[in-house]
């Protein structure tokens, strides 16, 4: 594991860039633990100050120091993405492995449902969900909802690997020596699909953060928990751009773009690493 990590870092520039970007973002998020201001306090600093040495990213019209506020926002945003990824990973693994292993009718039934979830447009459904929940909408609830809707693409990928594992000799050996289906899946098949799961996790985090930002900017989430999207929402509410308070928009957008590109680079480079053909091509050239 450590060996692979060092190899990737040394040979794959995309991976290295992704790691650097994400480390910076994570470090920034960790700064929230030493923030001098609690996240929801307003008017603790003079409002509308441009970036300076005392207020690195300026201050908002609500009298918050943008630098420290943003550390909380990116922490919540990252946590959101990770929560969705963990829950949806469990769903994707169970459904993908079972479908691939069982084959036949079970596989076809599960994949039909799976394809349905890939096709259904989620944005209107999430908006409908907000509309029903309104003030009861919370960060955790949205994460749960997104996890329940966002497992399908990865389940399909896992299933395609599991399908080929099914015909391998070690699976037959497992069946003949009386291993239960659960044990075969967990002990024999799971290790094979884990590399794919790692790479799709990055994509899934990207996907869920993207939705979270979009919904928050429109005000369709809990707007009192600071996330990057909620920050942009408040900036828009105070017409920051028209008022010339560009830093209120610029820094959150910049930070979230760095996060997206970092996660994406990790996903792409891990994907390449999993496929031995492209891995060899890279280390030669």
């Amino acid at each position, binding site marked *: 594991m450590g060996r692979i990590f060092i190899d990737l870092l040394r040979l794959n520039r995309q991976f290295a860039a992704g790691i650097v970007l994400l480390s910076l973002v994570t470090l920034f998020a960790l700064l929230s633990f030493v923030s001098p201001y609690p996240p929801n306090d307003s008017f603790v600093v003079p409002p509308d100050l441009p970036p300076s040495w005392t207020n690195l990213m300026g201050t908002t019209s609500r009298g918050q120091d943008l630098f420290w506020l943003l550390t909380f926002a990116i922490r919540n945003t990252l946590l959101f993405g990770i929560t969705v990824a963990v829950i949806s990973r469990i769903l994707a693994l169970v459904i993908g492995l079972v479908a691939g292993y069982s084959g036949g009718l079970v596989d076809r039934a599960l994949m039909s449902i799976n394809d349905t979830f890939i096709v259904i*447009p989620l944005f209107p459904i999430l*908006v409908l969900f907000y509309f029903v929940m309104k003030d009861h909408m919370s960060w955790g609830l949205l994460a749960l909802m997104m996890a329940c809707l966002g497992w399908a693409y990865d389940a399909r990928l896992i299933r395609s690997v599991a399908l080929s594992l099914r015909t391998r000799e070690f699976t037959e050996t497992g069946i003949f020596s009386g291993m239960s289906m659960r044990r075969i899946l967990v002990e024999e098949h799971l290790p094979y699909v884990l590399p794919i799961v790692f790479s799709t996790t990055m994509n899934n985090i990207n996907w869920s953060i993207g939705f979270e*930002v979009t919904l928050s900017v429109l005000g369709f989430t809990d707007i009192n928990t600071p996330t990057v999207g909620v920050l942009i929402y408040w900036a828009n509410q105070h017409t920051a751009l028209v008022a010339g308070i560009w830093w209120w928009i610029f820094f959150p957008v910049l930070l979230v773009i760095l996060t997206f*590109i970092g996660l994406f680079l990790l996903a792409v480079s891990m994907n390449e690493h999993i496929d031995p053909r492209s891995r060899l091509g890279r280390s030669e050239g």
Partner: protein
Amino acid sequence: MISGYPLYLLGRLGQFALVVFIGINIAFIVTHATPIDPVEQSIAAATQFGSTSPEAIALMRQSLRELYGLEGDLAEQYVAFWRRVAVGDFGPSLSAFPTPVSVLIGRALPWTVSLLVVSTLLTWALGNLLGGLAGYYAKNRTLRLAGLLAMAFHPIPYYIVAFLLLIVFGYLWPVLPISGGYKMNMTRDWSWEFIGSLLSHAILPVCSLALVGLGGWFMGMRSLVSNIVTEDYVTYAELGGVKRGRILGSYVMRNALVPQVTGLAMSLGAIFNGAIITEQVFGYPGVGTLLVSAVHVGDYSLVLGITTVSIVAVSLAVLLIDLLYPLLDPRVKVR
């Protein structure tokens, strides 16, 4: 025993029915299984200011329950829900009373559909063409740079890209219209002036959709092509002196396009999400803008109507791609 194309057709139709079925069920569950009563919420919002007589509240509760389809037990509500979907009747809109929801959606749908069709076809064609070239001429510097640019925009969500374009062309360099579907107060005849206005208003929404979408097709096509060019039949064609353009067009790209069409069908839902989000940013008069404003004014029947129509429309579009698929992949017919 049926086989070949009819069997394929039957499978796709079944999948279409399943998507609509599950989608509508999700909509039902979301609206009915949550512990929050939308009726009580609306009443609370309406009676927040000033006192209302108890009789008026009772009357209001009654009509709201009717409107939200909350009469009878859960089974009756479920049947009623499906009936409304089947006949496409979502009642009158609350915000534009008494215009029926279906009329409002019908007015917005052409905008969304044309934006979606134009941008998707453009993005898909351009992404695949550039990706195919980049895979075939792997050493070309211009194509590498194009790939890098496409990849840089790809992971950024639709909203942020649209927002960035809005800032650039709205505040920093105001040369393009940033809001609406055509110039305000223009008569809607098919004059050149009107068509020009339509086109110029569509530039930014189409561009932001294309910027996000290009990278995916580009990367997919590039890796497909770079795998196919190592196949024996391509080497054979090269040794046989077949022209490079012909090899790329008929030998390599055509084969690589097959999974890309499947990919298009699979990602249509996500592209639709992107389109309606982008619409909202640019105030484009389509379904997305309608949806967001419906939420802001608390128009339940409109939100529900748009959700349902979206599910059905996207699955229909996927079905259409599936039906055209055999034209590209003849294997479907003989299987």
